[in-house]
């Protein structure tokens, strides 16, 4: 790809989505803001460029699927789904409120466009692998994208799923690891070291790419290359900045699950509106 117009469109979309994320978490006074901001560019690249999907027909059988395994980052996917038209934007006002279909963590039966429920970490790659296996059995061609956190890779089930996807040659599956080195309690390498990550995945039989997760050209190229590689699942380790786009939230573990107060909300929205 990569006409300038398209890149500008995606960048602008990300900026809008980030504003919606901050508004949602501020209004709910609850939710995970840092990881949602950090993953915004990945999710925007998928929904506004890479994925085939029809918001007016969420059950269209040939649609590409997106599974949010790091389930706490619902603000980013809800913001994108609402913007795409899966449900009214006003619904975002009731995020995490009783009676709302927008649960704190994704709940597939209730929310149009949510493909799989998640919440406890480590479920998403397994679920997507089951779906991708099902697509192979049905001889369907769509892709299954998963977004998981880097801290999430500390869950043993992730590596069970990595073995399974390799066994069944699920080349219709592309996993993004949101590699920001931060988890709830601090730096991933002091809490439970993950590096070196690429050889771990390679040794499990996956094709591995490492990119800047805020560079749309890299994100799109990595997915297109992964799709061309047949016979094994693909992982894209996307280096991101937790809290990206709001200067005082960037790279601060404390913004994992803490909502902003009124002053911080104003500052954040000001930065996102005017550029840092």
């Amino acid at each position, binding site marked *: 790809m990569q006409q300038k117009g398209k890149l500008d469109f995606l960048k602008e979309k990300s900026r809008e989505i980030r504003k919606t994320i901050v508004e949602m978490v501020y209004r709910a006074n609850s939710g995970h803001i840092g990881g949602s901001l950090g993953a915004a560019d990945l999710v925007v690249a998928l929904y506004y460029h890479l994925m085939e999907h029809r918001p007016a027909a969420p059950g269209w059988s040939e649609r590409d699927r997106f599974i949010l395994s790091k389930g706490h980052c619902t603000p980013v996917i809800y913001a994108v789904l609402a913007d795409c038209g899966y449900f009214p934007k006003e619904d975002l006002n009731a995020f995490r409120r009783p009676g709302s279909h927008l649960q704190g963590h994704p709940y597939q039966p209730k929310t149009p466009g949510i493909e799989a429920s998640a919440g406890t970490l480590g479920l998403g790659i397994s679920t997507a692998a089951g779906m991708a296996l099902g697509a192979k059995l049905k001889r369907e061609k769509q892709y299954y994208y998963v977004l998981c956190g880097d801290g999430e890779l500390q869950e043993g089930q992730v590596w069970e*799923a990595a073995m399974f996807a390799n066994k069944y040659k699920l080349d219709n599956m592309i996993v993004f690891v949101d590699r920001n080195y931060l988890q709830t309690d601090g730096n991933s390498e002091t809490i439970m070291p993950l590096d070196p990550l690429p050889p771990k995945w390679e040794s499990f039989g996956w094709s591995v790419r490492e990119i800047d997760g805020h560079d749309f050209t890299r994100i799109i190229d990595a997915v297109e290359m992964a799709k061309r590689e047949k016979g094994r699942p693909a992982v894209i380790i996307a280096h991101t900045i937790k809290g990206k786009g709001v200067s005082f939230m960037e790279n601060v573990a404390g913004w994992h699950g803490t909502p902003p107060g009124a002053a911080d909300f104003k500052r954040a929205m000001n930065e996102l509106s005017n550029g840092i």
Partner: protein
Amino acid sequence: MEYKQTRQGYVDGLLELAAEIPELVVLDADVAKATKTVDFQAAHPHRFFNCGVQEQNMLSVAAGLALEGFLPFASTFGVFATCRAGDQLRNSIAYPSLNVKIGATHCGITTGGDGASHQSNEDIAIVRAFPNMTVLVPGDYEEAKQATRAAARYTGPVYLRFGRDAYPVVPAVHGHFEIGKARLLRKGTDITIMTTGIMVHEGLLAAGILEEQGYAVRVVHFPTVKPLDERAVIAAARETGGIITAEEHSVIGGLGEAVAGVVTGACPCPVIRIGVRDVFGESGEASELLDKYGLRAVDIVGAARRLLIGVRD
């Protein structure tokens, strides 16, 4: 007396269903020879997926297959399905109410020689507590087969509980299987024995012994523990005034507490629970363990007599 394995009933049910339901697939976690799904693998190799020793992954994979319109039967031992993979059972399957069936074998104390680590005496308690779950505990081979068939025709998550051993064939439970319906096996008004799973055999034996002593004993069998047939429970409480429950499971959280919960709200009467007391099991032959842990007709009779005449045998 004829003896047959309930786990064989599970797989024989799956083999019948395979021809009827093209979306049916079977998963196992490296215990296919033990769960008997190896028979399904031999007949339908392309509809069988061995997940290796990965119960957690298997249950989430099953959820994914259900989301794509398949009808997965995920098979492993009860202790692995509910304890090792309890989170996946809860969050991947029960919470979104996906159409996944769990075929749990080697449940209860009759798992025998492997000992307490493999004897799931808590699985009914765990799965009962999850909203959306249906819990089926058949009493013999044929009822196991019918329960499997009924589970396949029902939309939603179902936990199917089977044992390891060969258990007595109980013709009284071979009628039409309907999820949520108890079976009235003997009429009586003095007291009621309520059974689930393989304890139906001991319950009927106990009723026969009590009859010889002059009591008219009602026997009601519950192959569905959840949703519980509350009408059958309330009728028994009202009409017989005392209930003995019998299950090859802990007295905590199983049929006994489910029955007691209904009775206390609707028509209070004494409920004595026969089951494994609050202890872990141990290695031994199934029959030795049924004796040692108090899961025999004689134990049911003793409890019944305490209620009927107020004396301790």
